[in-house]
Structures are given as structure tokens and as C-alpha cells.
């Protein structure tokens, strides 16, 4: 008997543009993506949620600031509060920070330019549902493409996050593309059930496109979501 396919919601906001790439990647990794419109007040029965990249609501005010008020985000917040797995990629990361589901904030890149290139990131923790397929300290090559990726937290908050191991991905030395403090590329909440990252794992699932390293992140999520499916049976 084949393994059950976990159902993973991909929330589509006005201005999302990586929603289909995320769905394609999840499907390629043996999950069943379920598209959810931002106006939907309830999530379908899913095992995890992905907030995709893009420019929801035109990045008005601050990136992610408006999307957080959409009906679907209220449902996602409730899902996360119940311990549900949520992965925010790029704009999804910005939305999770603005919604207070993840610590810190994403500011405009220090260079003031849009960056679009492969970057090297280091996996700082492998005991999370998003990095379980990685080796400790593994170096991944995953593309970034953003204008507002400069993650920031005040010194006391950063120290607390470092202490609690909430910094899960860090840009390699000299590869920080946006000026993020402490080279932070990805963080988790305290329970490690919600993660946000600026690099796009969904664009690095097939080695044909330059790197397959993003599949490690997404396949980790699929594994964890599948466990959730099996636990519910």
C-alpha cells in the first residue's frame, strides 16, 4: 500500500505569484496541495499550510502588513494556535512576522535593490518539521528573489531567539543578500511549528533548475504533514 498523501493548503492572496510553484513542488514531493483563496474564512481539512511568495496587496504600507487581515489569515492563525504546521516563504514569511506568528520583521534590503540569485544557507537545526531531512550544518543552495528581505530583531529579542534555537537558517558568510541581522534567513516560533524563510525552496526542487536543495525543506514538511495524516487515521 502506498503512503497516504498529506493535504497541504497553499493560501492565494491577491498578488501572490509563487502559489502555483509551491503547489507544483508539493505535488512533486507526494503531497496533495489544496489552494485556498484569501477570502475563505475557514481552512479545508489539511495537515499543513504554506503561505507562498509574492507581493500580496502590492506590499502596501509594509510587506505583509495588509495580508494579515485577510479572512484566510484568521483561519491560519487559529490553525497555528492549535499547533498546526505553517511554512511561510518570502512574502509568506513577511506576513507571518506582521501577524505576530513569527518574531522579527522584514525590512527593505540594505542595498535598496531587488535581489534575485542563488544563495548558500546553513541549516542550524534539524529537529524541526521543516528541516528534518537535512544534516546538521548542511549547506543548501536555494534562490532568493525579494526587495524586502532584511530580517531584523532588536538585540534583546535576537539574543533570546539565539538562546532558544529559533534561528534555523542562516546565510553563509559573505552571502547575506539583504543585510539581515546575524545573517538570518529563516526562523521558527518557539514550538517550531511555524517557520518562515526568505529563500524559495519551491524553486529548488528539481536539480534541472540548478539545485534540488529546496526539496529537503519541503519534503521535511511533507513528512511531518504525513505523520499528522497517519495520526488522524
Amino acid at each position: 500500500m502506498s503512503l497516504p498523501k498529506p493535504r497541504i493548503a497553499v493560501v492565494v492572496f491577491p498578488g501572490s505569484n509563487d502559489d502555483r510553484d509551491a503547489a507544483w513542488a508539493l505535488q512533486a514531493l507526494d503531497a496533495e496541495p489544496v489552494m485556498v483563496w484569501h477570502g475563505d474564512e475557514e481552512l479545508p481539512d489539511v495537515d499543513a499550510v504554506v503561505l507562498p511568495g509574492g507581493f500580496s496587496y502590492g506590499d502596501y504600507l509594509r510587506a505583509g502588513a495588509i495580508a494579515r487581515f485577510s479572512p484566510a489569515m484568521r483561519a491560519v492563525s487559529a490553525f497555528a494556535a492549535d499547533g498546526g504546521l505553517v511554512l511561510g516563504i518570502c512574502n509568506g514569511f513577511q506576513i507571518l512576522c506582521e501577524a505576530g506568528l513569527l518574531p522579527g520583521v522584514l525590512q527593505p534590503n540594505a542595498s535598496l535593490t531587488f535581489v534575485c540569485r542563488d544563495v548558500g544557507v546553513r541549516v542550524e537545526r534539524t529537529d524541526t518539521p521543516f528541516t528534518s531531512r537535512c544534516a546538521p550544518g548542511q549547506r543548501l543552495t536555494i534562490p532568493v528573489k525579494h526587495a524586502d528581505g532584511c530580517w531584523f530583531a532588536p538585540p534583546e529579542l535576537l539574543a533570546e531567539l539565539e538562546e532558544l534555537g529559533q534561528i534555523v537558517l542562516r546565510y553563509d558568510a559573505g552571502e547575506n543578500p539583504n543585510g539581515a541581522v546575524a545573517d538570518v534567513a529563516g526562523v521558527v516560533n518557539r514550538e517550531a511549528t511555524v517557520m518562515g524563510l526568505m529563500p524559495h525552496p519551491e524553486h529548488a526542487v528539481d536539480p534541472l533548475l540548478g539545485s534540488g536543495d529546496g526539496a529537503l525543506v519541503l519534503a521535511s514538511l511533507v513528512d511531518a504533514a504525513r505523520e499528522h495524516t497517519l495520526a488522524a487515521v
Partner: protein
Amino acid sequence: MRATVLVRPKAGILDPQGEAVETSLKHLGFAVGEARIGRVIDLEVDAGSEEEAQAAVERMCEQLLANPLIESYDIELGSPA
């Protein structure tokens, strides 16, 4: 009641836009420093009193208009221009 909200990057927060504008002003020959760029939000607030309007706009700032991690805000209230 008219309300104007000034949102600024907090002291010490990286402000590359401010730096870029400062550099450009220097290129124009102006002797300037510490340029910082924020934003202005003009609002018409439906409130019975100035105190009520002030309290409402403060809540707006905390919940949406400013991100307290990186931005500070000032509120100016006034009658319609």
C-alpha cells in the same frame, strides 16, 4: 476630525532610503546629515472629542500603521483645513 500620523524609523534602525537620499543631497552640494525617511498618513477620524480621536489613532498605530519593532509614530490632531 483631521489626524496626521508621522511614522519614522526608530533611532538606530537601518534606513537605506535615508542614506541614499542623504548621499544624493550631498552630491547636490548640500551640507546635510542623518537623513531619515518615514511616511505620513492623513486621516479623517470620526470621533466625539480630541481625546477619543487621539486614543483611536494610537490604537491604529499600534495595530497597523507602525511596526513597533522598527518604527515610532507621532500623532497630530487638527480641524479640517
